């Protein structure tokens, strides 16, 4: 889908040196990777009497690193259009992800929708992801945008800390995310400021906690059968 069509974008995207941005916004150069978690041992559950020695293994969890320009194809056109608002860009397996700070989200969404060189008409939704190991930016909201005009699909990722899970709502720009944001709130506790009615959508109204966060247990019960008891999947000895 490398759409090479040249479009009239903003004539010159304002070149902004990285130093002008706040330090944490400096994109990691290619090659430098950020560890956002650790994997301990061979099995997901501890305390099972594993004496093999593999229980002591510690492996970092490393996600694809930020990419530097040129991104190639239409990726550059979109990146030009969004340039001052981007925190970093990750290209992995042919999909482009723009990391954007929460404060810039609405501006970026407006640009994505209205800029004639971008024209992302459709926001496919929000998916919350909880990375407990990504200190200071534990909760991620992942948006998928689709431009039908140019047949392009991008992903926008916004990260907020667990302690202050606030990010602006995109409801005003893309009404389609209304229920998606409510679902992300329900499941992860992400608070979308400015949403007209941010209430639980899938769980009952009085439900305590946000079930799909990593620190929320699966909530299964042990299964008993004729003297045998099998713990729920999250408490079993298992690989991870």
């Amino acid at each position: 889908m490398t759409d090479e069509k040249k479009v009239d974008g903003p004539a010159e995207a304002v070149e902004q040196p990285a130093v002008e941005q706040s330090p944490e916004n400096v994109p990691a150069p290619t090659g430098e990777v950020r560890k956002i978690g650790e994997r301990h041992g061979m099995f997901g559950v501890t305390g099972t009497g594993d004496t093999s020695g593999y229980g002591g293994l510690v492996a970092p969890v490393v996600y694809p690193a930020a990419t530097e320009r040129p991104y190639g194809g239409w990726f550059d056109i979109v990146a030009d259009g969004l340039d001052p608002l981007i925190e970093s860009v990750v290209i992995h397996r042919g999909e482009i992800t723009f990391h954007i700070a929460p404060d810039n989200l609405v501006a970026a969404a407006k640009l994505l929708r209205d800029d004639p060189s971008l024209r992302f008409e459709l926001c496919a939704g929000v998916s919350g992801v909880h990375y407990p190991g990504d200190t200071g930016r534990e909760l991620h909201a992942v948006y998928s945008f689709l431009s039908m005009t140019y047949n392009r699909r991008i992903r926008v990722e916004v990260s907020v800390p667990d302690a202050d899970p606030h990010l602006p709502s995109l409801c005003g720009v893309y009404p389609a995310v209304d229920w998606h944001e409510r679902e992300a709130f329900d499941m992860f506790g992400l608070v979308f400021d400015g949403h007209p009615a941010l209430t639980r959508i899938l769980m009952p109204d009085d439900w305590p906690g946000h079930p799909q966060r990593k620190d929320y247990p699966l909530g299964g019960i042990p299964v008993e059968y004729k003297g045998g008891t099998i713990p729920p999947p999250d408490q079993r000895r298992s690989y991870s």
Partner: protein
Amino acid sequence: MGLEEKLPSGVLLTTVEGVAGYFRKASFWPATFGLACCAIEMMTSGGPKYDLARFGMEVFRASPRQADLMIVAGRVSQKMAPVLRQIYDQMAEPKWVLAMGVCASSGGMFNNYAIVQGVDHVVPVDMYLPGCPPRPEMLIDAILKLHDKVKATPLGPNRLAQIRELEAEGLAALPTSDMKGLLR
């Protein structure tokens, strides 16, 4: 023996219980309680190929007040459980519940925060039907087995005695968690 010999031909003697049971099972109206995948198979059972009409059951009543049987077809979520109970309470006695599919019977593969681990936590269940989802033939089989049960249900004091007996049996029964032996 007296009475039988004095009867004209063509008259059959039976008990009130027998007649009531026979009529109850012969016009059994299920309430539509379709929840998930099983609901589609339940609708298929009412469709042309499997044809529940053969057993006088094609009339799925939308109103619980007109129904005798609640087929809980699918997974019952924590949010749905109070609704399910309300529907059950609105049904007129006598009423029966059929837990269709493994999710309604025991929670099945969804052993998690959202699903009630067996609809018998909420309403009394008369027949459990395994399968994910059960085939329409299996549903029909379960319904026919329930028919037999309904037909044999006693009335009045006999019914009360039966309930007491079942209750005593249940209280004396060994809980599953205390059962020992092979897992079979």
